[in-house]
């Protein structure tokens, strides 16, 4: 235990920018973002995958970055909340969150946004959820019950839930950029 900790080189693309890092193997993707890249948008609410505040998109899919070792994500393509706006223009999800007052303290918001982005993509792929009545046919659009179930991995203690749902519902109708293109 007195030996220096094991480290590894880690290459990551974050919001389209390449990074080459040398990290302690124990460093999670979340801590790599927050403590090594000064990207503190992704939040640490529980550090155990139980709250969703750390949600980012890794290779296009929403994941909880607190449970991914950065070294295991080597070569990965990551989008965090800082990558959602383009040229200062808010992503429709972001502007709908502001308009619907879909947050209060704001601490879960980054995770909610990234999760919503990944979730809408899953819906568009026709992935069913536990509330989907017809498994084979898949979800019947961006309905409130589908949004609620699929967003339940993102806790909000301020309980902005109804506004989160209405913001996502609206963003899904105005969204023009394909969700999967955020690489």
């Amino acid at each position, binding site marked *: 235990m007195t030996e220096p900790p094991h480290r590894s080189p880690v290459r990551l693309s974050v919001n389209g920018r390449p990074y080459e890092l040398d990290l302690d193997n124990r460093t999670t993707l979340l801590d790599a973002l927050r403590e090594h890249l000064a990207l503190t948008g992704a939040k640490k609410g529980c550090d155990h995958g139980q709250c969703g505040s750390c949600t980012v998109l890794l290779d296009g899919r929403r994941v909880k970055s607190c449970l991914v070792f950065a070294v295991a994500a080597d070569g990965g393509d990551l989008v965090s909340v800082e990558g959602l706006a383009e040229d200062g223009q808010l992503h429709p999800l972001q502007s709908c969150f502001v308009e619907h007052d879909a947050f209060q303290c704001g601490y879960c918001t980054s995770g909610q946004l990234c999760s919503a982005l990944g979730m809408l993509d899953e819906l568009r792929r026709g992935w069913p959820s536990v509330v989907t009545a017809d498994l084979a046919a898949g979800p019947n659009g961006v309905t409130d019950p589908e949004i609620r179930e699929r967003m339940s*991995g993102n806790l909000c203690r301020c309980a902005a839930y109804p506004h989160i749902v209405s913001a996502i519902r609206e963003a899904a109708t105005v969204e023009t950029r394909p969700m999967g293109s955020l690489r």
Partner: protein
Amino acid sequence: MRSFRYERSTDPGRAVALVAGEPDAAYLGGGTNLVDLMKLGVARPGLLVDVTRLPLDSVESLPDGGLRIGATVRNSDLAAHPTVRRDFPVLARALLAGASGQLRNMATVGGNLLQRTRCAYFQDVTRPCNKRVPGDGCSALEGQNRDLAILGWSPQCVATHPSDMAVALVALDAVVEVLEPAGARDIPLAEFHRLPGERPDQETTLAPGGLITAVRIPALPFARRSTYRKARDRASFAFAAGSVAVALDLAGGLVRDVRLGWGAVAHRPWRPRLAEAALRGQPATEETFRLAAEEELAAARPLTHNAFKIPLIRNLTVRTLVDLAEDATDPAERDR
């Protein structure tokens, strides 16, 4: 968290050699449980062998109508797979009832089977636990045990296996394909997880260093009429208070065949074979279903805080069987 070496393997044989070569090595899959336990100090591997890039990420239909699922297939991909949705809805529904969207995107099939109990005492290194430290004592036996076992427990351990997916798989007679240092073999899922007995630290029959490479589901045409029912207080993102997997084959009002699985009741996903035997050939009535469930539950020994699981599992079993039986006769939409 102890410092660990990290190796990434693209060859299953090489991965097994790496892990078998070190007593404190572990496989890293989706990480959703292992990373959690490493942070808690419950797991302290010195070497992690990352298996997520092994070529084990495909779902193949077998010629007889069965399915082979690679060990690194992510839970969400498996749940969304068209064949699974059509032929084994119980499996898709069980997967979708588990965890959250993000976690299902991460968790692998192999890792899901190997996840550890969520018993609060196991997860807290400041409290005695025989599973974590053999001989330490079981804090849960007389502690907060609402979520824990009613079947097959021992005084050494009353933990439950937390998986939803495994409950569906055990009902479907799934077989776990493993690669061990001594070679490859098949282990029926019903024999993969052990009951705690005197050695709650030994959770599976997998040899040390063994790697799950795939899970095989034999053909079961009537599994197209199958479903999974999970009860929980929170409407989503919660482990089961109790769950049932059911596939039902009816002929002329009689139960021709049936597959059952029970979750959150034991140290392993529970296959209620007594209940199944009591159902085969019997009329598909609520009364038959109840008697069958009660026959299996006669062996249940509730703990201080979980006697409710007996009526819960009985009711869920009866209701799910009734719903499937009604579906078989009346395609009109059910009321849930």
